[in-house]
């Protein structure tokens, strides 16, 4: 395994979720050190990981404490140890918008924040963007939304409340696709348009978006509210954003006298959902550097898991682990 040009290095404190690292150029190899695990000497803790070209995605060579000492052994993440298959290191190109494979969901609840049951949550984490399809929740099918609660291999929940529940009491078996691990990867261009899940009637109406919006205070956006969504008084209005949360912002419009907003029910399908479209300058950027800002990047994902044993052996680590990494290019690769 040739060390040649190191293109980038860094460190971070694990938050217990997949660590996404943007790199300045393409990469041929990555090495990761978990300093916390190295010092602790706990059995089954991973200490170093190595990935290079031609290794599978989400895999790596892992060196781990085989006993409660500094004695180490080696394996791969795909094979794992202690009976657990581990997460590894993956390449990421955020401009690649190919959705994940369709995964079965067995049911969906009729709530403003529906919970979908699945035996396979895959690499989904809180903050991931998913798309459900072919369920009885026709009105949500095909739309992207953020998830906030992921119970590993059991269920996930739509994070940003709809104005009205999907309206189907019976199960909503179908499929889901993982679209992006988080909103940073999801946004190739910043800021993007968003589908609206709710608008309150208030002196300064509060807008909730299906996918976290990433807008900032002072931003100008145009509201698109078709007839099937109520509150058509807002349709076409150019408004100013005051950011409240990752998924909500208020607007400089008194909506108290307006028709109540409603998320269309399944019977309304096919329909066009309400949208918010950024049109003005984002104060966080300079002139002519707004809606067209290409934020796509290439980099790596250091995987981890909500299951403690897997996280301890994976490069993304467990919460509070201090992790260092180095990534590089080889002058030449001789691959069979």
């Amino acid at each position, binding site marked *: 395994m040739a060390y040649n040009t190191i293109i980038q290095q860094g460190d971070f404190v694990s938050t217990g979720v997949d660590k996404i690292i943007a790199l300045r150029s393409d990469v041929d190899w990555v090495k990761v050190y978990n300093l916390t695990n190295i010092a602790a000497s706990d059995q089954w803790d991973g200490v170093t990981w190595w990935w290079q070209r031609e290794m599978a995605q989400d895999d790596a060579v892992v060196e781990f404490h085989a006993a409660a000492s500094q004695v180490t052994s080696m394996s791969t993440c795909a094979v794992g140890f202690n009976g657990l298959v581990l997460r590894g290191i993956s390449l990421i190109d955020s401009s690649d918008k190919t959705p994940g494979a369709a995964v079965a969901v067995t049911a969906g609840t009729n709530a403003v924040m529906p919970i979908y049951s699945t035996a396979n949550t895959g690499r989904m984490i809180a903050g991931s963007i998913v798309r459900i*399809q072919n369920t009885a929740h026709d009105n949500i099918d*095909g739309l992207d939304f953020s998830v906030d609660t992921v119970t590993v291999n059991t269920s996930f929940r739509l994070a940003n409340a709809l104005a009205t529940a999907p309206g189907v009491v019976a199960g909503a078996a179908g499929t889901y696709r993982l679209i992006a691990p988080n909103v940073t990867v999801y946004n190739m*261009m910043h800021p993007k348009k968003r589908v609206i899940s709710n608008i309150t009637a208030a002196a300064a109406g509060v807008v909730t978006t299906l996918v976290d919006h990433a807008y900032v205070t002072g931003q100008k956006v145009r509201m698109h509210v078709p007839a099937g969504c109520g509150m058509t008084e807002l349709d076409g209005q150019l408004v100013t954003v005051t950011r409240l949360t990752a998924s909500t912002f208020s607007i400089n419009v008194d909506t108290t006298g307006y028709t109540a907003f409603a998320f269309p029910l399944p019977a309304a399908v*096919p*329909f066009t959902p309400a949208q918010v479209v950024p049109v003005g300058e984002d104060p966080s950027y300079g002139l002519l550097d707004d809606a067209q800002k290409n934020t796509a990047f290439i980099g790596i994902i250091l995987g981890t898991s909500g299951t403690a044993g897997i996280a301890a052996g994976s490069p993304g680590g467990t919460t509070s682990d201090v992790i260092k990494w180095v990534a590089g290019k080889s002058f030449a690769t001789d691959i069979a």
Partner: protein
Amino acid sequence: MVLNEAAKRLGVSLRQTEDQLTRDMLAATASFINCTGGVNGDNPTEITRSDVDTVVRTLLSADAYTIMDNIEGDDKFGTAPVRDAYFGLCSTDLTGELDAVAGFIQKNQYPSPMNALRSEWGAIGNLRFLVSSVGSKSANASNLGVDVYNVFCVGMEAYACIEQDQYSAKFIYRPPIYDGPLALNASVGYKFAEVPRILNDEWIINLRTTLS
């Protein structure tokens, strides 16, 4: 000879990259209308005349200028006059769908086909469709999980590519003597610095559609 061929291919690559970046910006940012007039049971549905009329009406209501002038009717068999029109920019996958829309006029049915652009497929109402093999497509994005095609319906000056750093594109050739001490290899390539930008958000609509 090799250099000429490389220059030709790089030129195509440059402009195609430019188009793809513009395409991706429009897909990310422009407001959309789902086709709802079709019968394929999906959301969006396949494209229909009512969907085209909705888009045209919306652009007209926003005072968007049409891009192309009328093509006046002529005394020729099988032809029909063409209205002044906005452009619909879309994938070549949609050509069969467009053929099936009520009121579709093939470009060879224009009174003067020479007025049609090379990439043009035809016209429906006040929309003339330009097709490209790299037209915008959102994979697995419909209710039923099939690909959704983005048809960017644009009025005049709805968007632009803005040059940055005093240049738009540069073709670069470095002969071998500048490329290494042994003068073994030449370098040829391009770079460009420009930004696609929506100029008026009301003059562009992404009409989303699926195949029938």
